[in-house]
């Protein structure tokens, strides 16, 4: 058997970076001085989103496995399984988009962007972040108004008997949080020398700050 010493588990990155990501996960940076409160907000949100994400995925796995076991072990399916999973899909998606924005992990086609000099990338990133934030806030507004309209119809999910709007409140919250992340990204790019693809992930370094 050929063996190049590749014993044991491969501890490579579990999740490959998407197109447009710089190579290694760059070191984190923090807001300082008068922007310090932003750092607290940022960290609190990050913790919360990470909690929701892992809990949501694990609950979904548990719920789906329980349904399979129910079908084979007890000859019955649970009508609530599908509704619970739908709720978890919404939860994971809208908690996750904020978290992905924070980690700079939304999929982008950065090939052209990458050709610009650092200075122009910084400008472009401020524009991208602000427009993205604006789109998120507009969607937050309309999803709020959508949730209100569902609230007013009083729709009830048939199996869990829960009001449908309760599944949907994550939409406006998720869009607002994501919008804030992109505002922070713009602030980071304006207030500090490096180019940031998110408030805490550096895309490339200005010579003046940290060496690569």
């Amino acid at each position: 058997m050929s063996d190049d010493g590749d014993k044991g588990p491969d501890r490579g990155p579990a999740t490959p970076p998407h197109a447009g990501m710089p190579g290694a996960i760059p070191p984190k940076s923090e807001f300082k001085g008068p922007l310090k409160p932003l750092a607290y907000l940022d960290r609190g949100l990050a913790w919360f989103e990470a909690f929701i994400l892992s809990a949501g995925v694990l609950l979904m796995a548990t719920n789906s496995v329980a349904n399979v076991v129910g079908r084979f072990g007890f000859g019955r399916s649970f009508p609530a399984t599908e509704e619970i999973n739908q709720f978890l899909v919404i939860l994971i998606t809208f908690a996750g988009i904020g978290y992905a924005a924070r980690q700079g992990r939304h999929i982008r086609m950065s090939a052209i962007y990458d050709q610009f000099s650092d200075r122009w990338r910084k400008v472009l990133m401020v524009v991208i972040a602000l427009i993205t934030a604006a789109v998120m806030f507009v969607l937050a507004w309309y999803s709020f108004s959508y949730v209100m309209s569902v609230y007013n119809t009083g729709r009830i999910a048939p199996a869990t008997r829960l009001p449908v709007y309760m599944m949907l409140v994550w939409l406006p919250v998720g869009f607002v949080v994501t919008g804030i992340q992109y505002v922070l990204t713009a602030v980071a790019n304006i207030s500090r020398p490096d180019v940031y693809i998110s408030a805490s992930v550096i895309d490339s370094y200005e010579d003046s700050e940290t060496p690569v």
Partner: protein
Amino acid sequence: LDIKYALEEAIHEVQGVYATQFKEYIEANSDHTVTIFPFGTLGESADTTELAQMGGIEMVTASPGFTGSLIPELNVFNLPYVLPEDTDVLAEFFRSSPTIHETLAGRYNDQGFEMLSMYPEGEVVMTTKQPVESPDDLAGVNFRVMTSPILVSTYEAFGATPTPLPWGEVFGALQLNMIQGQENPMFFVESTNMYEVTDHITFTGHNNFTTAVLANKTFFDGLSEEDQQLMRDAAWHAFEYIIEYQEGLTEASLEMILEAKPEMGVTRLTDEQREPFRQAAQQVREVYLAETGDAGAAVLEGFEADIEAARAAVAE
């Protein structure tokens, strides 16, 4: 005026035939036009219903089976052995029932809809791998149902193992024997080739697939008196057409199926054979009543009275 009208079915299926009649009536008797969006073009039933509710389109066909989350009492249409098994009585019931045209129409009003019509689409039949003559024959059968608690309870009561599955997987799951049965109106069994992957059709008489034609209320209220009457006339015209169209539709679908697959088993349960299913259905009423409370009980009682009246009218 252009009326956008979304369906849950393809243009050649029952809802499409109804909508085409409606469109032709409107366009022949006014300058208005009707644009029909068949299934798949504007999303699923839940989406198109909501779209009509929000005023994005003017009209929608919304089956009570799907609209139960909006108006819980509509689940009465999913209950087994409530609707009359005789087609003439059934048609008369839909034509004349005050519970439908007043009580339920009012509930639709509360949700921002004007109910223009409600009509049956055909008897729901079971198609299975093994013949079904009694609930015992359904023991151990994985039976595909929509994810509705009432439907799940129904097939539990009938002795099967209800298995919710997205429609896209049903054909393959029958083929692979993951499930061994499904229910649908006859024309749908034919048009979706369900007969290719099952071997027996059973007429149990437990339900008739029903649908409602709704208009956005703000849109409807904003119409002139004449136009409102035009819409109602068109709806009644299409209603009578579809009732007539359905005479023999089940038979015609069955004929087409038997032509394509002569060895298909067809069982019409006798009144006696239906009795154990009717008995089992009683416990599903409890589920419905627990879910819908007094309002649901009133609708169920209203249905029973209206059906009696319809039966008497037809007997005359």
